[in-house]
């Protein structure tokens, strides 16, 4: 079997031209979904039972059914009603792109809300008590203590959710958005070379997801400098070196690194 590199390069370029559409879907649904998720979490954690129940119902609806059926419901289903076709929302609900973003955002909001809730509930109780006993107001408590800690706890699961969302944007091709998967199908209809085109598309998605995971891992490491082991102490247990070598290593470290502020 010989590989047609010209065709592969050509396909890759054509698919990369559709990458902005995929990224546009991803970023706009992430922003909209993230904002909606904050509202849902606030409702979910509210002591008022109607708000609480409403949020639970939302989570059940959007986490319990497949995204594809939600997307079709938004794109095809809502148009069944005359009232919506005459309302000011119609230009938004008529366009495939905004429908795809809307359904992706509604779906990811449900999953993100649960992730944020998990992060908030993982904040140690002692930290909240300490902050309150220092006389912090509820808002300062949220901004200074609960928010940053919850964000750090939530980031690993959130990166999984972003990857899932990036993969879900492929479904937008089924409601006639020309994203990467849609363009891949277009190329296949012209050339009938199914495997090569789909493998190219899959490779681009893989690289995209790899970059997302790396970027969020970097952010997580950046936000939690206190959990990083100090270099001088970390050298000892992780490395199996002979005692002479380790002594040299330590001596080297103490020479090159004067005592920093954080050590005092």
């Amino acid at each position, binding site marked *: 079997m010989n590989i047609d590199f010209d065709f592969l390069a050509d396909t890759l370029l054509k698919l990369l031209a559709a990458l902005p559409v995929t990224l546009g879907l991803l970023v706009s649904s992430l922003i909209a979904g993230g904002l909606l998720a904050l509202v849902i979490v606030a409702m979910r954690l509210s002591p008022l039972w109607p708000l609480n129940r409403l949020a639970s119902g939302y989570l*059940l*609806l959007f*986490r*319990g*059914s*497949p*995204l*594809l*059926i*939600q997307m*079709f*419901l938004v794109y*095809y*289903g*809502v*148009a*069944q*009603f005359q009232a919506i076709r005459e309302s000011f929302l119609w230009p938004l609900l008529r366009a495939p792109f905004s429908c795809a973003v809307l359904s992706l955002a509604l779906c990811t909001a449900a999953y993100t809300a649960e992730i944020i809730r998990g992060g908030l509930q993982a904040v140690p109780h002692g930290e909240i008590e300490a902050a309150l006993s220092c006389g912090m107001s509820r808002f300062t408590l949220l901004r200074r203590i609960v928010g940053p800690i919850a964000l750090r706890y939530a980031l690993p699961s959130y990166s999984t959710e972003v*990857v899932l969302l*990036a*993969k*879900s*944007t*492929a*479904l937008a*091709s*089924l409601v006639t958005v020309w994203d990467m*998967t849609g363009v*891949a199908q277009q190329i296949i209809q012209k050339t009938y070379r*199914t*495997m090569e085109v*789909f*493998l190219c*598309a*899959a490779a681009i*998605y*893989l690289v995209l*997801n*790899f970059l997302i995971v790396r970027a969020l891992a970097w952010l997580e490491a950046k936000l939690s400098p206190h959990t990083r082991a100090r270099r001088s102490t970390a050298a000892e247990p992780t490395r199996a070196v002979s005692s002479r070598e380790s002594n040299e290593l330590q001596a080297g470290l103490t020479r090159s690194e004067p005592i920093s502020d954080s050590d005092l």
Partner: protein
Amino acid sequence: MNLYRILGFGTQGWGTVLLLATLLTVSLTLTALAVGAVIGAMVAAAKLSSRRSVRIVGEAYTTIFRGAPELLIIYLFYFGSSNAVTAVARLFGAEGFISVPAFAVGAIAVGVISGAYQAEVYRAAVLAVPPGEIEAARAIGMSLSMVWRRVLIPQVVCYALPGIGNVWQLSLKDSALISVTGLAELMRTSQIATGSTHQYFTFYVAGGALYILLTSVSNRIFNHAETRVGRSFRQTFARQ
């Protein structure tokens, strides 16, 4: 009542068809889960292997099948499997194009995806088994196969149960994507119903409601199973 008639079980209604499609979705997902369990166990074993090359193969599998969109993987299997089967059949002298049944393609495609997720679940479950138990079992003279059968597997199944519940929910939702191959499972049947009645909203809501019914019922079942399994974990030495 119009709504009652089209969703009902009469000759004009889609009720029976939708329920049969729901059954098809359940059997498709169960088959996919079984396929995924076999693949997942093998990939988990590869990822836990002491040989680096084997580990890399396992890592590559989970990275690819968790990183590429499900829709693309299903397309690849749908178009790729028929081509592959035809090519293999041609080697044995068969002629013409052989298409693979949509159910098999769907079950294998979703199974391959769920296998990648199940591998992670099994790997974590194996690592959760205290190494002391294995050592103790070896120390009293159990053979390796007996350690697997009596000590490792029972605990791995218990630890893996919550994760398998999640994978089941994922696969159930992935199975809706099989509708692109034309297999008349729940999603595809809802689509056909909307096409023939032009009641788009009604039938997508009906289909969605059936999916929610499936996910919440299976959630109950898994919760029940987890509490049952949890019972054996809480039983301590001191209590007996």
